[in-house]
Every structure is written in structure tokens, then in C-alpha cells.
């Protein structure tokens, strides 16, 4: 993974929400960003007029005069692009005119309208940073035949500096025919008072292939909810990974609809629940077309006094045949006070289907821990390594990557 994101992340999480934001911070960030040699080739610094960056509006939240910045930097042939709150922030040699409407509360990105070479070998990374405007709606249209080698990042940060207490960020993603894309969406809440009700709606056109990674971290125990809807057309393939960490009072509704023939859905979810987290998730997979496949795995680790309720179901419609579907959920109890309820369900309206479901709950056995300790690893590290082993099947390395970026998020077992 590109190390650029480390800098960006730290920068954003540390400074971006300060009410008295100092442009010099951004300048120092950019300097360190460059000095550390993380940019593979010479990028924007030569061209960017930093003096054009300024804090233009303090009334609600941090805002920059991006238009001015962009106007003064008509660059050509950019291999690197970052979109931040609807604006290009950094770019190199970009040969594109962009019209951005900052006054609109919702953002619409039609990636097809950005006439740079997406297929260029020089395209190193592409980010959508949806930070300070996390309560906005984000529409992203991925064009047909779009292939992105690197991940598309959609990062959402919530902080006390924001004046709002309730956020309803919505992401609408339309992925065009024959496109192939990896998406990383994160919701990171540093605030003690914010309530987040997020929703993500994915629409996969025919033969689209999407790998979707969702990372959610809460520093403080606040009620959050996330609704996910996906709609898959013929021959589309959706691989969904999500991980939730930290303190959570979470309610989630995930609905995945397989409307097109030969659509394939694969979902792996990992949860690491600590303290008095309360996690509640309903996950439904609807097979509404024949010859569709789905594979769902949910794994949860219950620490302390955490509670988890998971209900997963496979629904097969009437007259829908030749289905191959599997639903499995596993729990790992690490505390006597923790509580895990896993309910796998099948709702099938005809005979010609192959569906399986199952649930297991267990604990870490002393014999495993002793075996590892006999090699010199401390008990606490053994537990961490074993949890990592349990969850690693479910959590994409991209998601783990986010967890090691911030000291608050870091968990020992992610280092292995």
C-alpha cells in the first residue's frame, strides 16, 4: 500500500478538525510529505502555490478556498489525484477542467467526466476524502469498462470540531458494466457526541467486479448505525469485507440483492468487540435470480462485557433455481461476561437449491496458548496472535492497514 495515505490520514485526523486551523500546518505536512521521499516522482510542490490556501470560512467547519487553489494550478497529465470534499487538493500535471460546486451540500462524481487516463500505468492512487463534509451525500458513478489498479478510498472522519451532532452520510455508488474496482470505505469517529447513521448503496451493472472493504472505528461508545444495500445485475461479482473495532453501540442492516443471473456475492465480516460494546446486525442475502452464488462468513470476538447479536439469512425467491449459497458464523468468547448470539437462517421457496448454514461458538483453549508460550511468546501476545488468526480470514489487509495508522486504533495483534 502506498505510504502516502499514512501521511494523509495522520494529517487529517490530527489537524483537519481544529477550529483554529493554521495553513502553516498544511504547509509543514506537505513539506514532510515530500521530504520523506514517499512520493515516487516529483509531484505538485513545484506547481502548487501554497499561499493560495487559506481558511475562508469559520462559521461551521473548516473550509478551504479550493477553487482559487485549482484556478492557479492548471496542471497537465497527472498520475496522482486526490479528491477532497469535492475538490482536487493535490495533483500533478493534470489536464482536465473541473467544475466544482461547493455550495451544494451533495457531491456528485462522475468519474467518466474526468478525462484523464484512468488506465494509465502512471495512476498510482486515487482517493476520495470525504472528511469534514461527512454528513453530505456522495454520489459516485464509475463508468463502464473502468479498471482501477489501486484502491479507491472513501474516507469519512467525524470529530467534535464539527458543529453537527448527527450525521447521515450516504454513499451512492454506481459501478458500470465490465468495471473492476477495489473500494475502501472508512468511518472513523473520534467524537464523544456524534451520532452516525450511515448508508451505502451499491449498484453493480452487468459483469461489474467490485471488491468492497468497509472499516468502522469508534473511539467512544456511541450509537451508530449503518445500512448497506447492494443490487447486483447479471454476472456481477461483489466481494464484501468489513471490520468494526473499538467501542460500539451498533445497529446494522445489510441487504444484498442478487437480481441478475450468474451473479456472485462473497461476504466476510470480522468483529472485535471490547468493553461494553453492543453490536446488532441483520444481514440478508436475497437470491432473486437463478444461477447465483453467495458465500457469507461472520466472525466475532467478544471481550469484556460485550454483546453481539447476529442474524444472517439466505432468502431464495419463488421459481429461482440452481442456487449455491453458504452462510456461516463463528464466535470466539474471551470473557465470561461477554455474550454472543448467532442465528443463521434459511428461507427457501423451492427445492432445486443448494444452501447450507451453521454457527459455532468457542473459546481460546489453554493448550493452544501453552504451545505458543512454550516458544517464548507471552500470554497476552499469544491471545492477540490467536485472535488475529481467527479474524484474518474475514478482514482485508486494507482494513487492517487503517487500524495501525492511529495510536488510538492500534491493536497489538495487527502487527503480526
Amino acid at each position, binding site marked *: 500500500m502506498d505510504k502516502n495515505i499514512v501521511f494523509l490520514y495522520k494529517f487529517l485526523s490530527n489537524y483537519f478538525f481544529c477550529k483554529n486551523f493554521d495553513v502553516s500546518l498544511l504547509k509543514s505536512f506537505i513539506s514532510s510529505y515530500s521530504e520523506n521521499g514517499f512520493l515516487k516522482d516529483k509531484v505538485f510542490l513545484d506547481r502548487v502555490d501554497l499561499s493560495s490556501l487559506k481558511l475562508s470560512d469559520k462559521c461551521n467547519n473548516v473550509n478551504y478556498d479550493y477553487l482559487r487553489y485549482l484556478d492557479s494550478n492548471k496542471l497537465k497529465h497527472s498520475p496522482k489525484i486526490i479528491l477532497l470534499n469535492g475538490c482536487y487538493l493535490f495533483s500533478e500535471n493534470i489536464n482536465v477542467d473541473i467544475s466544482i460546486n461547493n455550495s451544494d451540500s451533495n457531491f456528485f462524481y462522475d468519474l467518466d467526466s474526468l478525462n484523464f487516463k484512468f488506465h494509465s500505468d502512471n495512476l498510482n492512487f486515487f482517493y476520495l476524502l470525504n472528511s469534514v463534509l461527512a454528513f453530505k451525500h456522495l454520489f459516485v458513478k464509475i463508468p463502464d469498462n473502468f479498471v482501477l489498479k489501486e484502491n479507491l478510498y472513501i474516507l469519512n472522519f467525524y470529530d467534535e470540531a464539527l458543529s453537527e451532532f448527527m450525521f447521515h452520510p450516504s454513499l451512492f455508488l454506481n459501478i458500470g458494466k465490465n468495471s473492476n474496482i477495489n473500494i475502501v470505505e472508512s468511518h472513523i469517529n473520534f467524537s464523544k457526541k456524534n451520532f452516525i447513521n450511515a448508508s451505502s448503496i451499491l449498484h453493480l451493472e452487468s459483469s461489474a467486479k467490485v471488491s468492497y472493504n468497509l472499516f468502522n472505528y469508534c473511539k467512544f461508545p456511541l450509537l451508530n448505525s449503518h445500512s448497506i444495500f447492494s443490487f447486483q445485475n447479471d454476472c456481477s461479482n461483489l466481494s464484501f469485507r468489513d471490520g468494526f473495532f473499538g467501542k460500539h453501540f451498533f445497529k446494522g442492516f445489510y441487504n444484498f440483492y442478487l437480481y441478475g443471473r450468474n451473479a456472485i456475492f462473497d461476504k466476510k465480516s470480522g468483529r472485535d468487540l471490547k468493553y461494553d460494546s453492543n453490536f446488532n446486525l441483520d444481514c440478508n442475502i436475497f437470491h432473486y435470480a437463478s444461477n447465483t452464488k453467495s458465500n457469507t462468513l461472520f466472525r466475532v470476538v467478544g471481550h469484556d462485557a460485550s454483546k453481539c447479536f447476529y442474524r444472517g439469512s439466505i432468502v431464495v425467491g419463488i421459481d429461482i433455481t440452481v442456487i449455491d449459497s453458504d452462510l456461516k458464523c463463528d464466535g470466539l468468547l474471551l470473557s465470561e461476561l461477554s455474550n454472543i448470539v448467532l442465528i443463521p437462517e434459511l428461507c427457501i421457496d423451492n427445492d432445486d437449491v443448494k444452501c447450507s448454514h451453521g454457527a459455532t461458538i468457542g473459546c481460546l483453549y*489453554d*493448550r*493452544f496458548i*501453552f*504451545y*505458543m*508460550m*512454550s*516458544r*517464548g*511468546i*507471552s*500470554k497476552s*501476545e499469544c491471545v492477540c*496472535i*490467536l485472535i*488475529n*488468526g*481467527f479474524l*484474518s*480470514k474475514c478482514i482485508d489487509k486494507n482494513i487492517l492497514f487503517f487500524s495501525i495508522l492511529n495510536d488510538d486504533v492500534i491493536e497489538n495483534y495487527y502487527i*503480526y
Partner: protein
Amino acid sequence: MTFKSFLDISNLSVQLDKKLILSKLNLKIGLGEIHVIMGPNGVGKSTLAKVLVGNNSEYSISGNIIYDSFDLFSLSPDEISLKGIFLSFQHPLEIPGLSNFQFFKSFVNAKRKYQKLGPVDNKEFLDNIRKFMKILNIHEEFLYRSVNEGFSGGEKKRNEILQMLLLDPKLVILDEIDSGLDVDSLKDVFKCICSFVKNNNSLLIITHYTRILDYIDVDFVHIMNNGCIVKTGDKSLAYDINEKGYSIV
């Protein structure tokens, strides 16, 4: 042998649920010595091995074990390992989800941390592993498989020896290392063990068979019965047992 004993077990008694497994067992092992313990099934050989590496929570124990001037009962299993005792398990455990590479790196780093060294360099670490894997005839893909998961009996034992080589302990306890190994594997394994003990490491081999004596020169053979050592001799004692059975003791 005139070496100073650095493992001294005296009057060790181990009880589990009112059943006496080890009874006032005494054993001294010096630096660089190779000891073999033989005995019928169920006399407490493996229990002795487990107690030596700190797996004693389920037992009632009395007696003393002094290792390199440390009281072993005051140390946890990881501390015992860090001080240089290694147990090759009779039945190595399978740990799903944890790759061999991650596992090896974790315990090597744990040891380096104990030695106040920084984390191991990946390239150096891989080179080191590959060197040992070549000697043990282990394929590289083995590194990325889960620890012992789906391994054959022989592969598990080789894995144990690989771990031993990576940790470079002072005292190695091999609990039935020869069970589950074919002739060629046994040769590979003991080739490693022989080169390993040349560095003045001590060895305690628990076995039922004398065939290992074809591959390694041992200093002492102990016969265990009813939870204690009833006879000690040289390798000829093992051959006597092989020929006449345990009835002679």
C-alpha cells in the same frame, strides 16, 4: 562426565487428581550432555517433559527443579523458553489461521526482545529459515500454511525441529521425536539434532525405541517406572531393554 549440572531435578513429585504420576524423581543434566529416558507407557515421561517447560497448572507438585540457577517453578512457560529450554511436543498442536511464518517471526522477535535486540530483519530471517528448511527437506510453501494444520506426522515433527533451530535453546527436550517419522525423515531430523548439540547444548530425549541410538551418541540412558528413574546406564542399557523388555528393571 565432569560438566557442571545445569538442570537439577530433586525429589520431584507430581500428582493429578489424587493420582501420583511422578514420585520423588531425581535427575541431573550437565551442559552438553545427552540423556535418554525410556520406559513403558504411562509412567510419567511426558508429564516430566511438560512440567519442565512450565505446564504445571493442573498438577500438585512438590520438589525442586533448578535450571541454570533459576527455580523453574517460579517461571512461566514463556520465561522458561526465553531462558533456553525447548520442548518438542509429542503431538504438536494445529493452530488454524496462524501461518508458520507469522508464528516463527513472533517467537523469534519475542526472544530478541528478551535479549534486548530489535525486531528481526525480514530478509535475514527468511534466509535463516530457508537454510534450516533445506537441511530438513521442507518445502517453502510450508511457511505460509497454518501451524501444523493438515501436516502429516512427519511434517509436524520436522516443524518442531525447525522451531528448535530458530530458537537455539540450551536444553532441548524431545518427546518421542521418532514417532511418526520414516527412516529418511529420521535421518534428516537427527542430522540437524547432531549438528545442533555440537554447540554444547544439552538434550533430553524421551523415546520408546533404540533406533535413535543409531544416529546419535548418548551419554546416559534412564529407565523410568512408577514415576521415578529406576535405573541409569549407558546406551547398552537401551539395547538390553530392546532385547529383553522392561521386565529386567
